């Protein structure tokens, strides 16, 4: 324990120097600005910044990406409160009560509450990040190919089930993502798959251009396709967060923090689900649930605490297992790999200080959002009034530059265009990008784990089902699949309720 605290102290001091502080505040501000603009997601922000920071040392680059990540999710609450349009998907739940408070002339108070919730959620998540990552890493040291195969499949299935309204479409996107990851040289024999003589395809589809296409170009096309109106911003009163809110709503903060971290840890389930789940839990627990949706402070705190707590939560499995907890965490994971960091079970052995560096980066990012939440509210509001017809063409140019800059090949720009076009049309028919991205990130791990596992067991499938962790994951995957069938779902629920009824009666 004391070793951990000492390592964290070293990390905190490492980033307490002028250059790192400039990066911290610059990237947090940039993240808040991006979050303020509806249509620009945290995934896009991190993807573009990964390309911009490619020449920087690893710690500086990851610091910038984490600060931008935290800033974007926080910044999205501004648009939610003042425009009733979530800046990012994570802030949709904040619209319900944030906008109602703004309509009552309490926009500043709502932003103060959002700042309180975001900071409290981040700090709770950071505490969990510091405690759980080393513990999970230690458990993961016992994992073999069998467990990693199931973890990869579990991540894609969970992401497909939870993001979007139709699990079947989510699973299709996840499987397509896993398949796209197979294009290029395979990870065991370096044999070219689906390359058809093309040197570019033999190298595989690069992750960052694909992500920029799925989250950036597709969003640019979506926004450009819609008629835009100039937004009206509500007047703002005092934005100072109140310490009293933390005391009065401590139960909501703690509950939302736990939910946020838990959902963050689940592979591929992002901040938006954390915010909605926290909001729903707060409504259920509230003595005045009728106030939810009409300007409830409790509701707004729950939503903002939940989504911010899920940021460190999503980083926990990314560091300990190399399995990202959300789409932005997937890009962060890719950026770490690009910069030579090897996330996974061996990280706590090979480079334990890096885990505490990430904890410290999150702490500084939280200080950044608190600073800008207190002192830079009014100038930031001007960003909300910039028409999207001006922003989106510039974002598209950044998408092309970002895609090109990783390997300096035009093929990556075409990849970004191709993936973005497909995603634009697929999104219009209810297909989500998050499971695709998770599949893309986990495809290599799943491929190698399955084949290595089969080699170790000499083709025997039983270890994939009999090892304890494998058995649990296999049951969860099977239940997730089964529950998507309404008849099975109804029977399972009936069985569960009758079982509970019998226990109560006993």
């Amino acid at each position, binding site marked *: 324990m004391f070793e951990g605290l000492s390592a964290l102290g070293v990390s905190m001091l490492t980033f307490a120097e002028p250059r790192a502080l400039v990066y911290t505040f610059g990237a947090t501000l940039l993240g808040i600005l991006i979050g303020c603009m509806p249509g620009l997601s945290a995934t896009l922000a991190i993807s573009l910044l990964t390309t911009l920071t*490619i020449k920087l040392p690893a710690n500086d680059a990851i610091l910038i990406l984490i600060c931008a990540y935290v800033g974007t999710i926080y910044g999205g609450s501004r648009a939610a409160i003042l425009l009733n349009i979530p800046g990012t998907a994570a802030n949709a739940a904040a619209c319900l009560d944030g906008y109602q408070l703004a309509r009552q002339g309490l926009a500043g108070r709502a932003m103060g509450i959002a700042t309180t919730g975001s900071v409290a959620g981040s700090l709770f998540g950071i505490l969990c990040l510091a405690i759980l990552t080393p513990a999970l890493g230690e458990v993961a040291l016992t994992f073999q190919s069998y467990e990693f195969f199931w973890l990869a499949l579990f991540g894609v299935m969970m992401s497909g089930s939870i993001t979007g309204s139709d699990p079947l479409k989510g699973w299709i996107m996840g499987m397509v993502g896993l398949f796209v990851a197979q294009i290029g040289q395979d990870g065991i024999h370096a044999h070219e798959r689906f390359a058809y003589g093309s040197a570019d395809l033999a190298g595989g589809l690069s992750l960052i251009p694909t992500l920029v296409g799925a989250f950036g170009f597709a969003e640019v096309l979506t926004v*450009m396709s819609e008629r835009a109106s100039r937004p009206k911003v509500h007047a703002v009163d005092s934005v100072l967060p109140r310490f009293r809110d933390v005391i009065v709503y401590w139960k909501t903060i703690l509950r939302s923090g736990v939910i946020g971290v838990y959902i963050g840890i689940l592979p591929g389930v992002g901040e938006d689900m954390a915010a909605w789940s926290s909001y729903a839990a707060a409504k259920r627990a509230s003595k005045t649930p009728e106030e939810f949706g009409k300007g409830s402070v409790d509701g707004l705190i729950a939503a903002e605490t939940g989504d911010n707590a899920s940021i460190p939560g999503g980083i926990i499995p990314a560091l300990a297992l190399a399995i990202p907890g959300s789409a932005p965490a997937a890009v962060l994971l890719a950026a770490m790999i690009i910069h030579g960091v090897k996330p996974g079970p061996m990280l706590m052995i090979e480079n334990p200080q890096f885990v505490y560096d990430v904890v410290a980066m999150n702490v500084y990012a939280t200080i950044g959002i608190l600073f800008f939440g207190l002192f830079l509210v009014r100038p930031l509001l001007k960003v909300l009034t910039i028409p999207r017809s001006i922003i989106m063409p510039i974002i598209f140019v950044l998408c092309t530059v970002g895609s090109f800059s990783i390997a300096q090949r035009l093929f990556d720009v075409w990849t970004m265009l191709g993936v973005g076009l497909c995603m634009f049309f697929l999104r219009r028919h209810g297909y989500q990008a998050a499971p695709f991205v998770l599949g893309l990130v986990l495809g290599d791990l799943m491929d190698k784990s399955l084949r290595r596992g089969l080699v170790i067991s000499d083709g025997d499938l039983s270890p994939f089902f009999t090892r304890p962790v494998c058995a649990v994951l296999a049951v969860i995957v099977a239940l997730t699949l089964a529950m998507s069938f309404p008849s099975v779902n109804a029977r399972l629920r009936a069985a569960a309720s009758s079982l509970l009824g019998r226990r109560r009666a006993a």
Partner: protein
Amino acid sequence: MTAARVDRRFGILWTAIGLAIVVESWRMDRLEQQHINPWTAPGLVPGLLGLVIAVLGLVLLLRRPVAADAQPADAQAEPWRVGLALLLTTGFGVGVLGTGVPFWLAAGGFVFLAILLFEWPERRAAGTLARGAVQAAIIAIAAAAAITLVFQEIFLVRLP
């Protein structure tokens, strides 16, 4: 077209894609001449994934329409805007980049055209077309200069 009909078409598409992947994976070299373990054949995982995609496509094709599918697909999009967005972005990405046109010029031209054309109906209705053109030009020049400067000069990243 109803959402259920779109789903059925997508079901056919996914099934076809899945089966094509299975066929290509089956035809893939199994590296027998290198005496590798047959369980590590490169086509194993893609083939399984193709099979799963085909099965999921079949389920999509054959299932009854679900409640979520009743919603119309993105009703806010205007067809001319979709077409223009596709034309401008693919024109810039495929037609201009890599052809020798300096990046700052291509980027500036793209930003200028995109802002001008997408604001055209509102500007024309308000009688401020000339003002809109000047504003678009200023933003385009500033954006092209800033992107070139930040990426190329400050962060030393090569531009397309």
